[in-house]
């Protein structure tokens, strides 16, 4: 039983490192769209792993932990998609190194 709790604590530590790397990517990326990719992908996975680790340590809390994990998994990518779409439509500046813009021909805003 002690080994299982140590495995849970290590999973929580790995999840927190993912969250830290996501915030570091938010600091260093050159463009807004790169920042949103780094921020939401890394932070969603890091939060899910952290909560899973805590759920392994205290297994009486399993019901609420599973609800939290499913909630974060389903709502965080949705909110980041909405904000990325809104940022494209108000003509946020793409970086100077961007070469592919697949949405350009499908919108009716003159970009």
């Amino acid at each position, binding site marked *: 039983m002690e080994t299982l*709790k*140590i495995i849970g*604590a*290590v999973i*929580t*530590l790995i*999840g*927190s*490192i993912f*969250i*830290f790397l*996501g*915030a*570091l990517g*938010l*600091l260093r990326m050159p463009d*807004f769209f790169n*920042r*949103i990719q780094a*921020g*939401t992908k890394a*932070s*969603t996975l*890091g*939060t899910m792993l*952290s*909560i899973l680790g*805590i759920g392994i*340590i*205290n297994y*009486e*809390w399993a019901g*609420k*932990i599973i*609800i*939290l994990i499913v*909630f*974060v998994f389903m*709502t*965080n990518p*949705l*909110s*980041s998609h*909405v*904000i990325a*779409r*809104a*940022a494209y*439509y*108000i003509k*946020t500046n793409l970086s100077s190194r961007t070469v592919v813009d697949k949405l350009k021909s499908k919108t009716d805003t003159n970009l």
Partner: protein
Amino acid sequence: MINTILLIAAIIIMLAIFISAYRFIIGPDLVDRVISFDLITVSSIALIVIIASLLGKIIYLDIAIVYGILSFLSVIIIGRYIEKGM
């Protein structure tokens, strides 16, 4: 031993929140601040769950669910306001 590892994980998440708050202050545009706010609230969900395990009370997990709902609704409402107006 377990509590030490959880404390180190909590400190690392707090560093991530500070870095994200730096981007909130600097960010030259509106959308930079919105994405930094999203990252702060999702990271604090994990932080509250770790603190709940360190203090041993299950009631703190309800606060984490409320943070999740607030973050999700806030970012969607700001996104709709930017794109279409009120």
